[in-house]
């Protein structure tokens, strides 16, 4: 296998990895604030991508505003989920909460199929530039954008968590909800904020990915599983770990597709999850990147 081909697999792994990283980051954010693993996390990718694509196709909205509206739509779904389903139900127990988020995923998918059908929706490239050529392999500008945005989002999010009032409130809430509440932090608002942010991240990933891979109404559940795998790889309560886990999963899948079997690429990613949960459920990097 030539080095150009290898490089090509590397790029494709990083691109998918960026997508997984966004979803995993969403898992990490909502999990730290509310302790809920949100089964509908992947639906925000679908909403962001499909809203952007349909606005562009049906209403001729230019690509950039369409993408932003896609992110906004995903954020609204996150707001509704957090405000009307998670917050009132935080006390019904973990088991029932998982069922509720599973139901939210079912409802999102069913509604999306009613509105947009089951066919995938495509979106033109954000910047119509020719792909970069790097020693024989090509890297599209869209791939570069989503990879770059992942890093920038992570940095911005970490800065937000460290240096702003709201970020500090979210960190305090993730450590201990009761104590945070007694310190005057509005815990409910913080949890809601975390659902909005995490859904917006998913929506951003969906909007950025749609120029590369058309988005269909039924991708949400698979995104949830991949994002969760990435989050578990990196340790579910750490944003940095989640992003690292996302890229790692993308690379594992790309090279498994190259060297083992391209038809089982998805299955290998899922097998990673099963094996990982059995061997090291607390994540691979948790010992290195444990939160202060």
């Amino acid at each position: 296998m030539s080095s150009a081909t290898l490089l090509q697999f590397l790029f494709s792994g990083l691109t998918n990895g960026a997508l997984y990283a966004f979803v995993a980051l969403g898992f990490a954010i909502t999990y730290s604030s509310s302790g809920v693993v949100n089964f509908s996390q992947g639906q925000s990718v679908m909403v962001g991508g499909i809203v952007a694509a349909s606005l562009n196709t049906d209403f001729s909205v230019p690509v950039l505003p369409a993408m932003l509206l896609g992110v906004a739509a995903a954020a609204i779904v996150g707001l509704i989920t957090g405000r009307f389903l998670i917050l009132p139900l935080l006390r019904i127990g973990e088991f029932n909460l998982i069922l509720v988020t599973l139901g939210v995923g079912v409802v999102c998918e069913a509604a999306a199929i009613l509105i947009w059908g089951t066919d995938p929706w495509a979106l033109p490239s954000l910047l119509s530039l020719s792909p970069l050529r790097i020693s024989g392999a090509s890297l599209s500008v869209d791939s570069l954008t989503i990879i770059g945005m992942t890093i920038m989002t992570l940095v911005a999010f970490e800065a937000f968590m460290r240096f702003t009032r709201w970020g500090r409130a979210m960190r305090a809430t993730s450590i201990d909800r009761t104590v945070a509440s007694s310190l005057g932090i509005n815990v409910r608002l913080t949890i809601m904020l975390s659902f909005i942010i995490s859904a917006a991240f998913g929506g951003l990933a969906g909007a950025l990915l749609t120029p590369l891979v058309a988005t269909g109404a039924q991708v949400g559940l698979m995104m949830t599983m991949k994002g969760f795998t990435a989050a578990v790889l990196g340790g579910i309560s750490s944003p940095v770990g989640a992003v690292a886990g996302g890229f790692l999963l993308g690379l594992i899948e790309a090279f498994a597709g190259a060297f083992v079997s391209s038809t089982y690429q998805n299955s290998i990613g899922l097998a990673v999850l099963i094996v990982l949960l059995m061997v090291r459920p607390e994540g691979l990097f948790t010992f290195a990147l444990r939160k202060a």
Partner: protein
Amino acid sequence: MADMSSQPRKWLAPALCGLIVVLAPLLGGGYPNFINMAILVGIYYSVCIGLSLIFGIGGQLSLAQAAFYGIGGYTSALLSVKLGVPVLIAMLAAGIVSGIAAWILATPILRLRTVYLAMATLAFGEIFVTIVRENRELTGGSTGIVNLPAPAIGSFVFDTPFRYYFLVWALALAATWIARNIIRSRIGLGLRALADSELGASSCGVDVARYKSWMFTIGAVFAGIGGALYVHYLSFISPDSFSVQFSILMIMILAIGGRDSLLGAFLGAVIVTILPFILSGYEAYGPLIFGIFFIASVRFMPSGIAGVLRNLMELGKPIDGAATQKVTEP
């Protein structure tokens, strides 16, 4: 459960169930779709009571039921089509193969809790569908296998819906009897205990790992036979029937009907089957309505419709357990 000991009721309930099964086609036979719907209800119900043991009573969120349903379906289809095994024996083998698959999977996977178990079983279901889809020579890939034979006893072939109905419901009643005995046995009590707290249950002498493995396996046997019944009824098998969406559907059926009782599994199966007919003309909205109904059930009636009925009729205390988990957050 005190009323169980009183003698007259011991045979009353099974006799009543049998009578209803025999009389139902006569009463509802006038409605053209009745038999077909009753067959589907019977199959969904059998698969659901298998799942209710581990999910409803044991409080373990397993989303692998579609895979076991599919393993059963494919085992029976392949044995009967490729090897010419009599269908009823192939169906039995379907249950056994599903059970073995579950038994092998149980030991490592059931150590996982809550959402981790859910995701791992979901991943297993997804991998199963991919394997079926990609092994085209064996399974026919996405197009599947057509012209599956109908089951037969000697020269009596279950080739009409009316005959198939009795086969399905005979097995469904047998499954009911088995599940009922498990739920009311020491194992059932242990399961309910471990749903509340595995640590607490194990300290009281419940062999948590073994109980969970057994329930997972028995549930898979029910699902495997249900899958076999389904594909021979349609005379067709394809991977679409066994996607992870089916696992989620089974969970929703149980949550809506009532996850901690056999009546709940029945009511849920009835609702999911008749919903498209109620919505005639608006079937497309079915999944959305069912999803909303599911969320509302989890929120407002953790014991489902069966729980509401039970409370209404005051037939005694609801079987408290996994369904109505205790408040843990302050």
